[in-house]
C-alpha cells in the first residue's frame, strides 16, 4: 500500500463504499488524511518549489492525531490577546510531548513575538 491508500484510521480507501456508509461502518476518521500521506504531499510540494507549503503539511501531519476540539482550542489560544506568553509556552510543551515538535516551535516563537509586540493576554 502506498500514499493516500488508507485513511487516518488505517482503513483502506477501497473499503470506503456507499454500502459501508449505509451500514454505519465508516467514521470520519476513515475519511481523514493520514500523516504519512501528508508527509508524501510535503515531498511533492518541496519538489515543486514550495518549501513553505511542505512545512505546512508537516505541521498538519502532527495535528492529525489531535481531536477537532483540541485543534480548534489551540487555534483560539493563538488569536491575539487570548493567551499569556506562559500559556503559549505551556501549550508548546504539551505539543512537544505529543510529538508535535514543529507546532511546538510555532507556539514558542509566538510566545516570544507576542510578548514583544503586545499581543499576549492582558
Amino acid at each position: 500500500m502506498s500514499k493516500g491508500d488508507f485513511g487516518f484510521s488505517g482503513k483502506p480507501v477501497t473499503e470506503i463504499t456507499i454500502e459501508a456508509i449505509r451500514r454505519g461502518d465508516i467514521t470520519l476518521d476513515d475519511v481523514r488524511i493520514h500523516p504519512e500521506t501528508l508527509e508524501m504531499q510535503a515531498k511533492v510540494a518541496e519538489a515543486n518549489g514550495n518549501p513553505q507549503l511542505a512545512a505546512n503539511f508537516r505541521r498538519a501531519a502532527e495535528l492529525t492525531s489531535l481531536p477537532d476540539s483540541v485543534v480548534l482550542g489551540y487555534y483560539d489560544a493563538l488569536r491575539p490577546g487570548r493567551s499569556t506568553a506562559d500559556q503559549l509556552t505551556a501549550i508548546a510543551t504539551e505539543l512537544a510531548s505529543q510529538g508535535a515538535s514543529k507546532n511546538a516551535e510555532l507556539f514558542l516563537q509566538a510566545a516570544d513575538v507576542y510578548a514583544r509586540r503586545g499581543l499576549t493576554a492582558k
Partner: protein
Amino acid sequence: MTPNEPIGRFRFMNEQRVNLDGFATPAPELGLVAFDGPNDPKPSIKISDGRVVELDGKPESDFDAIDEFIARHGLDLNLAPEAMAIDSLEFARMLVNPNDSRKDIVRLAAGMTPAKLAEVLSRLTAAELVIAMTKMRARRTPSNQAHVTNRSDDPLLLAADAATAAAFGFRELETTVPVAGDAPSNAVAVSIGAAVGAAGVLVQCSVEEAAELALGMRGLVSYAETVSLYGTEQIFIDGDDTPWSKAFLTSAYASRGIKMRVTSGGGSEALMGGAEQCSMFYLEARCVALARAIGSQGVQNGGIDAASVAGAVPGGVRSMMAENVMVMLRNLEACTGNDALMSESDVRRTSRTHPIFIGGSDFINSGFGSIQRYDNMFGPSQWNAEDIDDFLAMQRDWGVDGGLRTADETEVARLRKRATDAVTAVYSHLGLGDFSQTWADQAVDAAGSKDVTAGDLMLPLNAARTIMDTNVTMLDVISALAENGFDLEAERCLNMLKARVVGDYLQTSAIFDEEMNVLSLVTDPNEYSGPGTGYQPTAKRQAEIDNIRQQKSVEDLRNEQKIFASQNLRVTGSAEISYDPRDVVIGVSPATGREIWMTLSGLSVTDVIGELMAGLEEEGCVGRIVRINDSLDLGMIGLTAARLSGSGISVGLQAKGTALIHRRDLAPLANLELYSVAPTITRELYRMLGINAGRHAKGATPEPVRNPYSDEAIEARYHTKVVSLVAIERNCVSNSSPETLEVI
C-alpha cells in the same frame, strides 16, 4: 439654463452611470494611493548567520509580527542575496520574456522581499501584466468560481442554483449566509446541489474562521477561502488573528485534508483606517509574502472587499491585477478577485476584468455571482447571473476559456428538479425539515429568491441547529442520498471525501475535472513560453466555448422562414413591358414568396406589398408585382422593374424588407428614395413609399420621408440574419425572366 448650472453637454455627461462611482484624489497619508506610498520602503535584506536581521529597510529589533513571520519562514535565504541583487527592471522583463521559464522566475522570487516584488511589478504596464499572467499562473487550465447564495438561505433554491452553477462550468462554489446560524444548512444544501450538477465541484461556506473549520471537519464543505490576511500589524490584529494563528489554522485545514487559500487584497487597510502611509500595493506585497510564509497553497486577492477603494485611485485597477500576478510569482494559486462590484458602469467593470479574462488565471472570478445581484449575500459581484450570457459571448468572441460553458435549458430544468428532490429527501430523512411541493416547484422555476414565496424562513435555522445538535456529517448526508435513490450524488459526495484521504488536491491550484482527475501545479503545470505553447482548449472544450445557445445557422433561419410560408403569392405569367403611364412595377427579389415570407421588421412580404399597392392606389397609380429572378441586388431589381414599368418608376423590394424607388434612366446603384434599415420600417412607411412612388410616376412632389432612427445596435441584432437571408436569396437567383405575381 440657470446660473451655476453646467451646460447641457456636462449635465448630460453627469447623468451617466460611471459618475455614480467614487473617484478619490490620491491621499498617500491615508493609504489612498495604488503604488509608491510615502512609507513604502526601499527593498533590502541583510542576513547574518542564516538569520534575517534587516528586511526592507527595517532592522530586526523593529520587526512587527508580519515582518517577523516573513523573515523567519517566508524567504529562501540561500537565494536571497542573488535574487535581491537582480535589477528590478531586469527581473520585470523576465516576466514577459518567453525565454525565461516560469520555474526560474518563481525560484528567484522566493528570495525576494515584499518591497522588491512590489518594485518589480510596479514596472509592468497593463499589456505586460496580461502576458505575465498568461505565463506565471500555476495551473495550465484556467477555471472559475461562483457565488451561490440567496436572501433567505432557502435550501431548495441554494441546491437548485448550485446545480445550475455546476452545469454552467464553475468548479468551485462559495456560499455564505445572511443569518450566521444558517451556515450548516447552506453547506449541506450547496454540497448536494453541486453533486447533482457535476462531479468534482468544490464547495465552501464562508463564515467566521473557527466556524468554517468546524464545517470542514464534518466534511460538509470541501475547501475554505475566507482566511483573511492584512498588510499592517494593527489591522491584522483588528481582524482577530496573528500570522501565527493563521499559520496554525492553515495547518489545521491540511490536517483534515481540506484545501484552503487565504484572502487579502489592496485597499483593505486604507478602508479600515490603518494603512500607515503605505501604498495599497506594497501592503498587499506583505500579505502575499505572508501567505507563502504560512504555507497557504493559494491567495484570493485583487481588491476583494476593498476593490472599489483600489478602483478609486489612479492606477488602482492595474494594481489589483498586479496583486494577482504577485501571487503567481510566489508560486501560489491565484484566485483573481473580480468579485465585489467595483463600479456602477458596465464599461468600467468589464474593463477591470477583461485583461485577467484574456490572460487567464486559476480562477478568473473569486466569486462570479451565479445568482442575481439581489440574492448575492456577499453583495453584488462584478459579474452576476445577469451577465452569464455576456461572459459566454466574450469567451466566444476572443476564443478564451474563462471556465464557463453554455448550459442547455432542459438539462438545467432537470438538474434543478433533481437538486430540490435530493435536498427534500435528505432533509426529511435526517429530520432537518419538510418542504411543501409548492415551495419545491417555485425553487425549480425561480430566477431568484423573490420568485419563491412559499418558503418557510425558519426552516434553515432549525435545520442548521439540528445538524449541529445531532452531529450530522457528510457521511450522514451520503447515506441519506443513497437511501433515497440518489446514488449518483451519493457517489460524487463520497468521492469528495475520498479526495481528502488522498490529499492530491491540497497541492497548489488544485481543482478536479469531471472525471475526478486533479488539475494542479503538480499535475497540470503551466509551461507557457510564447505563442503556440501553454494552455490550448481541446477541440471539445473549444466547441463548448464557441457553441453558445443563441447562435443560428442559415438552416435555422431557413426553417424559421418556413413557419411563415404561404401560397398567397402566385405566379400568373411572364412580365412584359407596359406603356400605361399609371403603371408602377413593384420588383421583388428572387426568394420572395419562394423561401422568404417574413421581413426583418416582422411584417409579412404580402403585408408589405399590400401597403405599397395601397399607397400607389391613393395616388391613382396601378401597382404591378414582378419577381426579378436574375439578381439579388436591390438596385438591379429596382432598375429592371423600372424598365418594365409604364411610368418608368418602380419600387424595389428585397424579401427581407429593404426597399427603394427607382427610375429607368438612373444608374443601377442610384435611386430616388432608399429605406435601408429593414428592421425599423413600419407599415406606415411602406404606405408612404408607395405614395411617393406614385407621385414620382405622376411628376408630383413627393413627401419628404425621414428614415426611422434608433440608438439600438440594430446591426448587431440583424446582420447575421441578413447574411443568411442574402445567402438564401442567392440560392434562388436564376436566369429565368421576370414573372408577374398576384397576391391572393
